[in-house]
């Protein structure tokens, strides 16, 4: 049962994989870098 628990845990990784997530993540990344640049 422990092994089953561990394998189900591993199957949850990677936590999220979708084009939409990549877009949102990179948008947020760029926004923050832009803010840093503007602050500089």
């Amino acid at each position, binding site marked *: 049962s*422990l092994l089953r628990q561990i394998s189900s*845990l591993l199957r949850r990784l990677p936590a999220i994989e*979708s084009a939409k*997530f990549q877009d*949102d993540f990179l948008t947020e990344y760029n926004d923050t870098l832009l803010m840093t640049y503007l602050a500089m």
Partner: protein
Amino acid sequence: EEQVSVIREGLAELYVNEEEWSKAAQMLSGIDLESGIRMLDDTYKLSKCVKIALLYLEDDDAVNAETFIKKASFLVNNSKDEGLNLQYKVCYARILDLKRKFLEAALRYYELSQLEKREFEGRQVDEDELQQALTAAVTCTILAAAGPQRSRVLATLYKDERCSKLKIYPILQKVYLERILRKPEVDAFAEELKPHQKALLPDNSTVLDRAMIEHNLLSASKLYTNISFEELGALLGIGSQKAEKIAARMISEDRMKGSIDQVEGIIHFGTDMEELQQWDQQIVNICQALNDVLDSMAKKGL
């Protein structure tokens, strides 16, 4: 007019003794309350309207009952008779229930179940009656159309600790936690319903069937990202065509987020949660799963 109303009330009493409810109601409704010849105060008029509506309700005649309860709603604000006002509220809730306006009925039943004052001119409202009102509130909420409003009322009822003592609590819990309800649970719940709540709809299914299918569909939308209509039909215990029709209606009424690819025969469930928030939710689930693994290893002494 005085004599007429006395005779009518007497006859109505006889009909009531013979449980001829509608005849008694018709007899009373013949009393002219608006003629203006007799000075009648609002409380008297209100008591007559409520009594007639209650008599019609004994025969499940919501249409006529509603006519008189509507008249009563213009009079109830001036009435100081708390017992009569309470009867008016009970009557109104039952009419909404009969007319299958389940969410509004649930809210009124719930309000009645929270009654603080228990003594009305010698008439005692006991705990049992409050519990009946609470049960009626839960039943109507479960029968109501699935969606955000119903979820809010479910949350209120689920957090009310009095509900955990009700016989109906297990199904309330599953419905609130958006878990899929299996046929045996639905059948057990069906036994508690009143005749009008088991009535057939135009498409030959009952109110309960529709409520359960919509509920299970909403639960499925929380479990799956997408699913074919064959599979969905099998899960809901109905044909794929019907599953598609119900899903389409719920999406168009904005009671469920999603989109339907009719060529592929697949429904894609949507969520208003942002990807980044979903990501955080997934991380919580992973951490919790990791925690469980560690706990069970600790339990096994590993």
